[in-house]
């Protein structure tokens, strides 16, 4: 489709493996979100997507574009830092909300 022909086989295989592993972690995270029985258990699997999934996919992207453009492309680091800072905030707010709403006498 595009100019992947210029890539060395080693880089191509590495990028492919990283991208598929990252996507697999995100997919398993969503499967867990769907399959696990209670909310407190369902909180855990999506974290795989936000740590391993994001990390591996961004590594693949950095490797691919740095090789294609023959210069270090590190825009992905901005996303990685942003995700690392924001994910705990969302999850902690959500956990606190769940604990708050599960208090006895709160019928919602």
């Amino acid at each position, binding site marked *: 489709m595009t100019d992947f022909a210029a890539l060395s086989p080693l880089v191509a295989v590495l990028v492919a493996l990283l991208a598929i592993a990252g996507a697999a972690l995100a997919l398993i995270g969503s*499967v867990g979100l769907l399959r696990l029985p209670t909310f407190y258990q369902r909180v855990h699997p999506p*974290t795989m997507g936000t740590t*391993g999934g994001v990390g591996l996919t961004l590594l693949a992207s950095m490797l691919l574009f740095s090789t294609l453009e023959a210069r270090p492309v590190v825009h992905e680091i901005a996303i990685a830092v942003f995700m*690392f800072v924001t994910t705990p905030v969302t999850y*902690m707010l959500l956990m606190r909300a769940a604990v708050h709403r599960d208090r006895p006498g709160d019928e919602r």
Partner: protein
Amino acid sequence: MRSRLPFPLLWLSLVAMWLVLNGTIAFGHAILGMVVALGAVLGLRTLQVPARRPRKPITALSLASVVLYDILHSNVAVAAIVLSGRRHGRAGFVEIPLELRHPTGLAVLACIITATPGTSWAGYDSRASVLTMHILDLVDDEASIRAIKERYERRLMEIFE
């Protein structure tokens, strides 16, 4: 207004980040990056976060590598639980008495625990300084408490207290 530049290290890393993201070390970009980073640190100063010079960089590095290893390890562990549907223990809450008091240290600990699949931060009582967390595969309460205290809390206390 103090004349000293607030958060000099943060300012320097913001400028570096700006140059790396733009992919140049051109003079104009360096000036622009410095101005933007100055705005950021001045804005941060109005939030009055407790400034803290990083101490013990070696301990911080060892903490980072331990956290990276644990995140990778628990990614695989949680994936195995989701795919097989089997686990060693049960899911449950654990209460951990903490000795760590520094707010930044607690924030970092919260980030670590939430970022690791399989453990999540469920609450913190600042008066009793007891942390409640939820663990997906809880085999032994005592072992989990010891792991948190020895792997993360001890290093965080060295860095922040």
